Each structure stands twice: as structure tokens, then as C-alpha cells.
């Protein structure tokens, strides 16, 4: 039963503020992912919780108790490092037993605990080996075992699978999820990989330049990004963002992408929803590639566009469409648009559209 709370966290490296007034409450047993680009302050936040970094302002509370003055050995928090950081001079067994030997646990019990966790992680046959003899995935299993073995209050993971190759990363991702479901512990996981974040998190915390951008379930941050940064950081391929103008026409509303001769048709509702919101002339339209519909035949509401570049990705293609001055990327069936330069017809699915104001904040208008 561990809750972690960050209150008004501030951290400076010299004159550079790397964490700006961070507030976050993490519930018991929750799997939280701190997501952001490198240098956004996510790792510093994690290290501050672990006690490897001091903070300049604010409180870190574990189960309601401020811990920012405690040494890391007194916080009862385990951490998995990106570099695995297995002690090279110790065997796998000794590595996993190491945190237990810091306590007054008996030898027999240490042995029992180490073998127990090794069984869960399926590394029993590796116990006698030195870390240098292990593969990357096994090293990380050992590192996770070392962190889990003493049942810490919370588990911190700093890009634990970032150093592995793509296939192994996917495997370990599933493994970490499996472990979390099975063992259950409050977990904070740092990554710059939004797919990892989406796959693992109960809630994602998106940070940018030391500022918390949005906290929400993977579904929430994907469907209701609070600003342009989140919108473009989460989701792959990246969300299209285009300067656009909204106008009223005979059929309802139309959204015209900058430089385009015609607008996309939208339901009239949009007008009333936008009414009273920030100046509608300086809008940004955000639309994920799956919200751009493409077909070969002309139809009502579809605009003629030119396919520019086609990226075949196996199960689907990403087609760059030239609309006005802007490029919109659409997701199509594999091979649907045969060649670059083809004339096709495109429409925007209004239910996929996001609108952002000039400052990049979401207007919260969804149809």
C-alpha cells in the first residue's frame, strides 16, 4: 500500500530549471509512466523520488510522509536503471541477494526469496552466472529481480528497456506488464517511447521542458490531448496539425486548411461549440492520420487532393496528401493508393478532429 505524492517540486541545475512546479499524486498499485523527450525532466523527477537527486523546492510524500530529507537507503524504494547496473563482480544470485543482505535477513530466507523471484522471472538457471555472460533481456530480468526481491514500497524504472533491440523491447514490455499484474506494486516508469507508455501505463504523465503537460489514461491522452505538444507526442504516426479557418456555409460548417481552395465539411454543431472560444481565425486543426479518409471516387464532402509520398508500412500505408499549403498524412489500406502523384479524394472525419488555439492549447471541442 503505497501512495506517492509530489507537491510543488522544483529542481535547478545551476541556472537551468529542470522541474517546474510539479504536482502529481500516484495511487497505490498504479503503473505511472513519465513520458517526454530527453531533457524534459522525467528522469530527474524519478531520481528525486529515489533520493539520488536533491530537490530545491516542494515535497515528496510517500504514504503521506515527506521523504525529501531521507537518504535513498531509508526510502525503501527500488530502481531499475537503463544501463541495468548489475554489479559485474557478483553472480546473478549475489546481485539479486544484494538488497536483502543490506537488511538483517537470515541466509536461509535470503536464499528462499532469491529463488522465489528467480522463478517468477524464469532466470533460475542463470543464478550462477556473471552478468557479463547474460543477454540484454536476461540482464534486465535480473535487474528487475534485484528491484522486486525485497518488496519495496515502490518501483522506479528509468527507461529499463531502452537499451534493448526492438524485438526484445516488445518482449520485455509484455513481461513487465505481466509482472506488474502478478506482483502489483506502485510503479513509476520513465520512457521517451510513447508506444511503451501507451502499452504499459495505467496513467501517463507527459512532461515537456520541466512542465507537466497532461496526466491521464492512455486512452485519455490519445483521444483528448490537452495541447499540441501532447497531441503530437502521443500516437504514431504523428497527428497532422494544420492552420485552418472555420466558416459557416449552406450545408453547415466548413474548415479550410490554409491555402486550400475549398473547405472540409463539418456539422453545424461545430460553430456553436466553437462560439465563445478563442479567436476562431487563428485555429489549428489537429487530425490523426486515421481520421483522414481517402477514396478514389469523387463524393459529397470529399476534396480532390494529390498523393505526394507513400510509405508502405505493411498492414497499412501512410500517404502524404497535399491540401492547400499543407501536408496531411492519411492512413489507408495497404496499396490503396498505387503511386505517388495520383489524384484521390479526401475528407476529414469530424469525430477525429481536434482544435487548438494560437497558443497550442486544446479548445476542448470534439464532435
Amino acid at each position: 500500500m503505497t501512495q506517492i505524492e509530489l507537491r510543488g517540486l522544483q529542481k535547478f541545475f545551476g541556472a537551468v530549471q529542470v522541474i517546474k512546479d510539479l504536482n502529481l499524486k500516484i495511487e497505490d498499485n498504479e503503473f505511472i509512466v513519465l513520458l517526454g523527450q530527453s531533457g524534459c525532466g522525467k528522469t530527474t523527477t524519478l531520481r528525486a523520488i529515489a533520493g539520488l537527486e536533491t530537490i530545491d523546492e516542494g515535497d515528496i510524500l510517500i504514504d503521506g510522509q515527506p521523504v525529501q530529507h531521507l537518504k535513498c537507503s531509508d526510502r525503501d524504494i527500488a530502481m531499475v536503471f537503463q544501463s541495468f547496473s548489475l554489479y559485474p563482480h557478483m553472480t546473478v544470485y549475489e546481485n539479486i541477494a544484494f538488497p536483502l543482505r543490506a537488511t538483517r535477513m537470515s541466509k536461509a530466507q535470503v536464499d528462499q526469496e532469491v529463488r522465489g523471484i528467480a522463478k517468477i522471472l524464469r532466470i533460475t538457471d542463470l543464478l550462477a552466472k556473471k552478468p557479463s555472460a547474460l543477454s540484454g533481456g536476461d540482464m534486465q530480468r535480473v535487474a528487475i529481480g534485484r528491484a522486486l526481491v525485497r518488496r519495496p514500497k515502490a518501483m522506479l524504472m528509468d527507461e529499463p528497456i531502452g537499451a534493448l533491440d526492438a524485438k526484445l523491447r516488445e518482449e520485455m514490455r509484455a513481461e513487465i506488464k505481466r509482472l506488474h499484474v502478478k506482483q502489483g506494486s506502485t510503479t513509476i516508469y520513465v520512457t521517451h517511447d510513447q508506444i511503451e507508455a501507451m502499452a504499459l501505463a495505467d496513467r501517463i504523465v507527459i512532461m515537456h521542458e520541466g512542465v507537466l503537460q497532461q496526466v491521464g489514461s492512455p486512452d485519455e491522452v490519445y483521444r483528448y490531448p490537452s495541447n499540441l505538444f501532447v497531441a503530437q507526442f502521443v500516437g504514431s504516426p504523428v497527428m497532422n496539425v494544420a492552420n485552418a479557418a472555420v466558416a459557416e456555409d449552406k450545408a453547415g460548417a466548413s474548415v479550410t486548411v490554409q491555402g486550400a481552395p475549398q473547405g472540409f465539411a463539418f456539422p453545424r454543431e461545430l460553430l456553436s461549440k466553437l462560439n465563445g472560444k478563442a479567436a476562431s481565425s487563428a485555429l489549428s486543426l489537429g487530425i490523426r492520420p486515421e481520421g483522414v479518409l481517402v477514396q478514389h471516387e469523387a463524393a459529397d464532402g470529399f476534396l480532390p487532393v494529390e498523393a505526394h509520398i507513400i510509405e508502405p508500412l505493411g498492414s497499412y500505408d501512410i500517404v502524404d496528401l497535399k491540401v492547400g499549403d499543407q501536408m496531411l498524412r492519411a492512413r489507408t489500406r495497404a496499396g490503396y493508393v498505387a503511386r505517388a502523384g495520383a489524384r484521390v479524394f479526401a475528407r476529414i472525419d469530424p469525430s477525429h478532429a481536434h482544435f487548438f488555439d494560437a497558443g497550442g492549447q486544446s479548445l476542448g471541442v470534439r464532435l
Partner: protein
Amino acid sequence: MAAVRTSSEVALNRVAIVAVLLITLIFLAPIYWIASTAFKPRNLATTIPPTVLFQPEISPFVKLFTKRSQLRTPPTPEEYAAAPWWERLVFDGGEKVVRDGKGNVQPSGYPSRFMNSLIVAITSTILAVGMGTFTAYGFSRFRIKGEADLLFFILSTRMLPPVVVAIPMFLMYRAVGLNDTHWGLIILYTAFNLSFSVWLMKGFIDEIPKEYEEAALVDGYTRMQAFFKVVLPEAATGIAATAVFCFITAWNEYAFALIMTNRRAQTAPPFIPSQVGSGLPDWTVIAAGTVLFLLPVAIFTFLLRNHLLRGMSFGAIRK
């Protein structure tokens, strides 16, 4: 990697092998010379050209360990017959072994000087490497005000030839009574080796990722425990390399030992050349003393050779 070698590469390779052999020979020649002299009869030690083939003798080593005096009259046949084999060797050289009133053989100064060398070199090596490791760890891991200046200051203690400070040191030592004491030499050699040890160890510790300690910290250990349980084992290679260099420096030191000590704490280097025998310089005894003196460093280096080789490439190659 080119699997096929061209003829010019093969030729170059042979030249390189010959060059390495030559260089090795040049380095080994003095050692052969001194080692062979240690087993020569006294009259062959100084022949020109040097004698290469001779009947090896053990007498230089007997003389090295015993106190002798010049024979005025040759020993009587009874005396000669009653003497053990080693004493006869001394008689053969025209000397006799000095005995005290109870007839006990008096040892030469060599064993105690050798022991002094061991005490001084080992203690100062432990101190220099120990303090150097702690200091290097501090410099490597913590943000220290004026770090670069402090490190330069530490290095600067090596920038002048030690002999320059010999006389002031001698006067200071005399004033505080450290002259001719083990601690006097130990302190001196430790100070002398410390800058070297700090710099070398800092290089090694810088190479140890600090994540290891951080892992130990979150695993529930204090920084001190993390240092001993994680950093030290990882730094073993560097410690071994540093220890060998410090030991060699302290072991071979001559000038200060000559000035600062004369009896009680005298080390072997100033003692060996003073072993001129009871008459003319006996080069075979000097050679014997030198050969024995070479052994500890050779053994120490041999024991740590794996660490040393790894130490040489440390930082350049990391898995």
C-alpha cells in the same frame, strides 16, 4: 581482418619480431650481468672482457648474509676441517666469519636492511594507494569547488626533482626526530606517491559507471558501504596497477634513503653499494644483494600481472 598476408607484410612482421627480440635483449642484458656476477668467483667478477663461462659459486650469498673480517693468518687445517661448508667458502676468499664471544655467527647488515625495505615499501604503498583511492573517489564523484586547481596542486608536488627538497627535508626531519626511523621514510614515500596514486586512481574510478553505486544506494546501502562493496571490487584492477607502481617507486628509492637513514631504518638500496667487503669492493656480494633485492618487485608484479595487463588497456577497451 585481412586473411591473406602479402609478402611485404610478412617481411615487416619478421622485422618487427627481430626488433622486439633485440630490445628485449638490451633490457635483459644488465639483469643477466648482475645475476651472473652474483654467482661468480670474486676474481672473475671484474675481468675485461667479462667472463661468460665459469663455475657458479654460492659464496657471494654466504658473504652477503655474514659479517666477515680479513684473515691475517690462514686457518689451521683443524679449523678448516671443523668449519661448516659455508664457512669454508669464506675462508677460501681470504676472510673469516665474525663470531661473538659465545661463538655465534654475526649476520651482516643485509637481512635487517632488506626487512626495512619491505616494511617501508609495503606500508607506504598501502597508505598511498589507500588514501589515493579515497581522494580519487571524492574527486571523481562529488562536485568540489576548485576541483581542477586542487588536482593540479596535487600533481604539482611531483613537478620538482625530489633531491631539491632533500636538504630542507633532512633538517626538518632532524628537528622532529624522524631521522633514521621507519615512519620517516614511510611518510616521505607516501607523500611522494600520493599525487601519482590520486591521479591514476581517479582515471580508473572515473571509468566505473556511477550507476553501480546508485543501484547500491537504492538497494539500501549507505554510500560508504556502496564504496566498499561495489566501487572497490570494480577498482581492483586500478588498485593493483597503482600499487605496483607505488611499490616500485618506494622500493627503489635511493637518494632520500641515503640521506635520511644510516642504520636502524636504512633500506637496502643505500646499503648494498656500501657492502664493499672487508677489503676491496666485493662486486660479487653487491651483485648477490642486488639480485635478491630484485625479487620482491618481480614477484609482486608477477602476481598482479593479469590486473596489470587489464590496467594498461582499461578505459580504451570496455565491453
